């Protein structure tokens, strides 16, 4: 009984931790959307900024990946 309860808590916690990835999705979409909006206004400057775009996406995504890590830890390590 105790073990089942603990396992249930683990799975609920993992599911809750997965919410964090939604935030990363919003962040990445925000960056890509703003990049596109800027690029359409000034297409000639867009090509030089793709590196910045990817770095920005990577940093935004990193924080979402942390919550993914928490979910994985709860599922497999705790």
């Amino acid at each position, binding site marked *: 009984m105790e073990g089942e309860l603990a396992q249930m808590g683990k799975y609920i916690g993992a599911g809750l931790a997965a919410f964090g990835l939604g935030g990363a999705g919003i962040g990445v979409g925000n960056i890509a959307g703003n990049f596109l909006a800027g690029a359409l206004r000034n297409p000639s400057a867009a090509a030089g900024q793709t*590196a910045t775009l*990817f*770095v920005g*996406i*990577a940093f935004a*995504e*990193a924080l979402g*990946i*942390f919550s993914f890590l928490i979910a*994985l830890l709860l599922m497999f390590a705790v």
Partner: protein
Amino acid sequence: MAEEGASGFQIHPMDQFIVKPLFGGDHIAWYTVTNVTLWMAIAVVAIAAMLMLGTRRRAIVPSRSQSVAELIYGFVYNMVEEVTGREGVKYFPYVLTLFLFILFSNLLGLLPAAFTTTSHIAVTIVLAMLVFLGVTILGFVKHGIGFLGMFWVSSAPLVIRPILAVIEVISYFVRPVSHSIRLAGNLMAGHAVIKVIAGFATLVVASPVVIGAVTALYGLELLVACVQAYVFTILTCVYLRDAVGDVHH
């Protein structure tokens, strides 16, 4: 996971990431040849073959294999020069090695029945820690104790500088963690998603949809494999710029 098979409908999306010894036995020591070792070796051999066989003839009008090798070389060279500046070009061989190894591991992992070495945090954390330690040591060698000035944001008002310094220090030490988990997490999640969707094919009604979905996801994973290799490399360049460039912020 899922030790107790409840019904006939079972999906084991994480089974593909199990490290197994190649030549029998269950015990895994540091010298055991496992499927990770095998696929890393295949990646290294493939890279060597691509670069050496491709550039063997060194024709003025490049053949197909030669232009692939030249394209990748030029792509990474331009990236290093653009992001880290002229000073960073010295470290171009290391960046190219990282890029090719990650790219080939990602792409080879997409072959059916292959093993994705970069989906393991144990593999990626080594790559990320080497970058982190290398950049830190290089920064101290180049700038001496002045490298710590990176944490002291001189463009901010004096009152909030100590707070910013704490945040900067934390974000500096989180770098190897996010650097490695981004790569491993993306690949692991992508491959697990393909497996989960493919598992739905056991429901006969769903199988035509599943075939389409798996094909689409496979295309997406090809993109992810290339983008993640690119992201890992460009972040390496960004970190390198902190060490070799001016300590400005």
